[in-house]
């Protein structure tokens, strides 16, 4: 499945993703209207299923989970960046929003058409005819992401524990 890249640069902070004035709105759907409000091309060009692409340190700044949450609510298929800020990374995994670490994310330009091939560990840039390696996700984090986030993961673990009978 292909998707458009909505491209940003280095150090995209969580205030830019969702401003603090909007955090007291009652739910993520209402907040999501203000996603990247100071980057008009997001509203102009983003359609559900597109990928958000940054460069270094995507998601730095505050711990607000509303940042990955609004992206997820809007149907961002994946966030691709050269590197992610720690709390944003954790929050996104917890919510089941796919993050893709790609050292060559700076080669992607706004509106390039991408195909993400997790199995092969690469992103194909159809517009440019290029392909980039992605850093594979492993272990615990992969399990959480595959479960759809930490809440379903925890639930799954709780259910497993309930259903495993002692062996005598």
């Amino acid at each position, binding site marked *: 499945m292909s998707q458009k890249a909505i491209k940003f640069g280095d150090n995209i902070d969580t205030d830019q993703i969702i401003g603090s004035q909007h955090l*007291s709105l009652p739910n993520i759907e209402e907040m999501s209207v203000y996603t990247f409000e100071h980057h008009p091309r997001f509203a102009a060009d983003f359609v559900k299923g597109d990928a958000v692409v940054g460069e270094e*340190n995507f998601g730095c700044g505050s711990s607000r989970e509303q940042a990955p949450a609004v992206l997820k609510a809007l149907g961002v298929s994946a966030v691709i960046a050269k590197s992610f*800020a720690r709390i944003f990374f954790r*929050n996104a995994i*917890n919510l089941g929003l796919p993050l893709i670490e790609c050292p060559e994310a700076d080669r992607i330009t706004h509106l390039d058409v991408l195909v993400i091939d997790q199995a092969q560990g690469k992103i194909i840039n159809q517009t440019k005819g290029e392909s980039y390696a992605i850093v594979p996700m492993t272990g615990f984090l992969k399990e959480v992401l595959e479960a759809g986030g*930490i809440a379903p993961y925890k639930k799954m673990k709780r259910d497993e524990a309930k259903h495993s009978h002692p062996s005598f």
Partner: protein
Amino acid sequence: MNEIESIIAKHAAVERVVPGEIVEVTVDFVMTNDATTALNISIFEDTLEGDTIWDNEKLIMVMDHYTPSNTVAAANTHKIMRDFAKKQAVKYVYDGVGICHQVMLEEHIMPGQLIIGADSHTCSYGAIGALSTGMGSTDIAVSWLDGKTWLKVPETIKIILDGKASNGVYSKDITLKVISDLTAKGATYKAIVFEGEAVSAMSIAERMTLCNMVIEAGGKFAYIKPDEKVKQYLNSRGRNDAFELDVCEGGQYERIIRYDISNLEPQIACPHFVDNICGISEVLGLEMDEFFIGACTNGRYEDLKVAADILKGKKIAPQTRLIVTPASREIYKQAARDGLLEIFMDSGAMICNPGCSTCFGATEGLLGDGERLLTTANRNFIGRVGSKDSYIYLASPAVVAVSAITGKITDPREVL
């Protein structure tokens, strides 16, 4: 193991941990504030189908970002928090008492503890030898189930600060210098241990400034080994429990960075990134519209004292405004007793109730189009304090105070 690893190992109930390993830890406290608690609650109740929180004395709730509530939406958020606190019999709920981190340090934190908070500047508690870090709402809500969370054991950078700061140079300047060298992502996923003679010489308030901003370099934990000063601070706050001064022999560090801060000049972070930092000499004379002294970075008594000493008998520049917001009620009371508030008012300042205030950019002191703010806070992101076309500069309380008098960026060493 180093200091960080040994505290994590203790909370994971294992002999040892190594960087990169993922461990489950039991936390001593979970702190949440009004910027995100409503979301934590809905995740806890709806998504996780949580029932009773693990410990009603270990979840600490603080209303500080939108306090007193400035919109109906904020009032409803507070109502959700209060109702939840009542239902769960949460013992510690602070409303208008101060900024969450300041309140945690004043009332609860002990060295050697491990704390998670729903706020990125939770890393501040390293100032008194606790490990603490910020997390998002789902992590926080999950921790309410059983008081546990998962952590990836970080690599540790040791920063040694040698030398003695010259007059007019403060912990904030040292902190900005360190962030500028590390860059906004230089410590991502990492812990930072500070030591050296300049750190030993710092007051607890100054150490809080230093640890507070570690997140601006992406850091996970900040840590300063507790000493006599920490003991005195805790005793002065009525916490007399003994704590271990941990000895960590043979700890490994990813890197060790050494500074001699003796010749450091006051530092300024320019728009729109915290690591866009220069010495004050490069921006002298730049005109400002608003000045702010406060935030969990620099809203403590010591900060207000430095500012008041400079502002005493002086007026702020015409057509500018100075907002002073003590970080906690304790600090507010002390500043009132000692005449600091009167000095600020006489100078033309507005004094706000303890809380995040202008730092958060959702309540008071927002900027209009094209305006410039010089602030003691920790972030200068685009639109953080109002208009997306405004400009935020970060500096020490001394720089902010002296610049408020002239209306433009001024070197405090000229008057001190």
